């Protein structure tokens, strides 16, 4: 099951972090992700974070299409 969900980090305590998924708070293991900070977005699967979600990369993926969209609006 690839069913991982993106969650926001509220607090960090050693190998665990308290995270918020749209209002629901849960504790997840962060042993697989380096340097977790409050405010980070993590991808969580079966009680463990498997990666940090990259804001830069997300913006990059969207950038090309948003350029096309705004070009369309001008033209």
């Amino acid at each position, binding site marked *: 099951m*690839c*069913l991982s969900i993106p969650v926001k980090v509220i607090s960090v305590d050693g190998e665990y972090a308290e995270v918020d998924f749209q209002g629901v708070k849960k504790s997840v293991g962060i042993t697989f992700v380096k340097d977790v900070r409050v405010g980070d977005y993590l991808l969580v699967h079966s009680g463990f974070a498997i990666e940090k979600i990259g804001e830069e990369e997300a913006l990059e*993926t*969207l950038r090309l299409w948003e350029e096309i969209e705004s070009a369309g609006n001008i033209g």
Partner: protein
Amino acid sequence: MQEILDKFRRPELGKQVLAELIPKLNQAADKFGRKLSFMEVCGTHTVSISHTGIRDLLSNYVNLKSGPGCPVCVTDHSDIDAMLELARQEKVTLTTFGDMVRVPGKGGSLAEQKAEGADIRIVYSTLDAVQIAEDNPGRDVVFLGIGFETTTPTVAAALQVAEKKRVDNFYLYSVHKVVPPAMHVLLSDPDVKIDGFILPGHVSVVLGRKAWDFVAEDYNCPAAVVGFEAVDILLGINDLADQVLNGQAKVSNMYSRAVKEEGNPAARQMVDRYFTPGDAAWRGIGIVPGSGMFIRDEFRRFRAEEKYPVAVSDSQPPRGCACGEVLKGKIWPQQCPLFGATCTPVSPVGPCMVSSEGACSAYYRYHRE
């Protein structure tokens, strides 16, 4: 950040991508004299592609086929029967992810056994199963380890907790598998005619984009690592269409916000500590070399099958069940003679209909006329 992530669900953006994509798919169809076929190999993709409506929306332009991506569905029936037998052991508390519970096997499903009094508990995380073992020292708590590269690290991390806390009554029955060896089998099968692969986003978070280069390099097949939102899926299909039209074969990373080139080495190292690869049987495919993950000898004390040797000798797949053909994308679910007739979500015959990520279950929900 949430606003950024929400953009991957925006219908306007989706329509924009579609407007570019559909002409390309038509162009490719004209060029090759047939519709292209792309295959995903991830149960969550099977469901997302159906649930977002993309499969139906594009059905006139491209075949979006489902491959062996559902870990419950590819579990061999002899393993299913062994798990059912474990549940019958007096001292065993069986813990499992939810989608295993209704899979039919010899003597009935886990759900049926639970109704008859067997101690079977559904958990969200393997850590919960370790906790149950700690809280119930008089029981032997067996966890059913099912899942691909995304899940196995979390199970390994739970084994580490059990090891550190000396939880002596926790056991694992591992049918964990890895996807790349199955891809080799699909790509080598002349009957599996696929023009491009939609690669599993979260398996790739662990493995890395680079791990899939063999798809393009060894088999000259286009591939893209794809996420799970509607826009992610459309961007992935768009990239594959571009590759086909340009006569290219490479492995694009269309899910860069989560998938790194090298993946997550810490997750892989945790798996390597406790597991070693070996040959494993996949339903419908047969033995796939090096595709199964087994507990290392050093940690054999966790092996449920050594504590309870329950191998079932007369295990039979259900009669008439065509899950094997469905899993390789050779037939659509609707082409299985049992689909929607004797095999339905309420009374499933095979695992493809039971599992929430099974192709038949998804197609029953979203693609029945």
